[in-house]
């Protein structure tokens, strides 16, 4: 059996890109069937196959890195570039929603009353729950840094505690934001204010949930001794993503909640 004489990773053939692509087809056609024909079947199958693909794809990456040793320094460099580029693409995604918000709020049209917030809209008080949310995410940024340093210093218990605290803060943010959504006097269909508010904060909330899930996977891997003090890129990727989510919130808070009120 021949073995490689280089430090790169030639992956085994995998079915997950195919199942992932088809699950995207099922998700989109499922949405069409839901919107136009009141049928949920294809959407459910799409969600299920999407979840199955993600689980098995990322399970295989853990196997390749932690169990088979394929994540050499140069491979890890590629993974770092990959995560950075992905986060950059997400920054551009949010840039679109901020563009829409500033386009409408800097020059409010006549039909809005020529003012922002538009006539008839009562915005949320930025000094109440939104400020609490800001402190929750900032604190989670501190706790995840504590977790990272504990990991690098080989302090297992501190790392477990700090990562758990970070996850709890993430869940707390989501719970607070959910209750805020139920509290608003306006909805997504209340003109451009409602649209920009819920599209921007809604996608941010989705990213908080994704980040919290990523951190939870890291916690489970940490319990199973996957990370060493020198090699823990999965955790670093989760931490970068989490800081990105925090920064997006800060922009949301300052722009939409504070300046926009």
């Amino acid at each position, binding site marked *: 059996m021949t073995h490689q004489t280089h430090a790169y990773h030639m992956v085994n053939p995998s079915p997950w890109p195919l199942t992932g692509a088809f699950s995207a087809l099922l998700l989109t056609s499922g949405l069409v069937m839901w919107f136009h024909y009141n049928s949920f079947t294809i959407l459910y199958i799409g969600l299920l196959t999407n979840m199955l693909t993600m689980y098995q794809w990322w399970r295989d990456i853990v196997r390749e890195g*932690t169990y088979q040793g394929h994540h050499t320094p140069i491979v890890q460099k590629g993974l770092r570039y990959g995560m950075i580029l992905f986060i950059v693409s997400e920054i551009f995604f949010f840039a679109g929603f901020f563009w829409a918000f500033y386009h409408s709020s800097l020059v409010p049209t006549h039909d809005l009353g020529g003012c922002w917030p538009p006539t008839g809209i009562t915005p949320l008080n930025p000094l109440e729950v939104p400020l609490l949310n800001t402190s929750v995410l900032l604190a989670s940024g501190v706790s995840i840094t504590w977790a990272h340093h504990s990991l690098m210093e080989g302090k297992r218990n501190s790392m477990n505690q700090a990562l758990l605290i970070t996850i709890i803060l993430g869940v707390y943010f989501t719970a607070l934001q959910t209750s805020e959504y139920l509290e608003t006097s306006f909805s997504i269909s209340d003109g451009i204010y409602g649209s920009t508010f819920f599209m921007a904060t809604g996608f941010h909330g989705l990213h908080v949930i994704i980040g919290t899930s990523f951190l939870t996977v890291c916690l489970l891997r940490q319990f199973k001794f996957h990370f060493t003090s020198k090699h823990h890129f999965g955790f670093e990727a989760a931490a970068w993503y989490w800081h990105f989510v925090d920064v997006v919130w800060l922009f949301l808070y300052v722009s939409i909640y504070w300046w926009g009120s």
Partner: protein
Amino acid sequence: MLRNLLALRQVTQRTISTTSRRHFENKVPEKQKLFQEDNGIPVHLKGGASDALLYRLTMSLTLGGTVYAIYQLAMASFPKKQN
């Protein structure tokens, strides 16, 4: 007072570390042995029988779902005329 506080801190830390030791043992070396076995099995099936089961479930749902989606597309493309 301070010495008592320090003692309390040590007790809490010791209790937590015993709990985590009871629940999780380091099974990484055995996993490394399993996944590095020179048997030519691709990584997505190398974990055992449950891998194959999950793969077959995922693939059948995906392909079945796609066939159903294309069928629905065909149905939607030729609406039935009502008299």
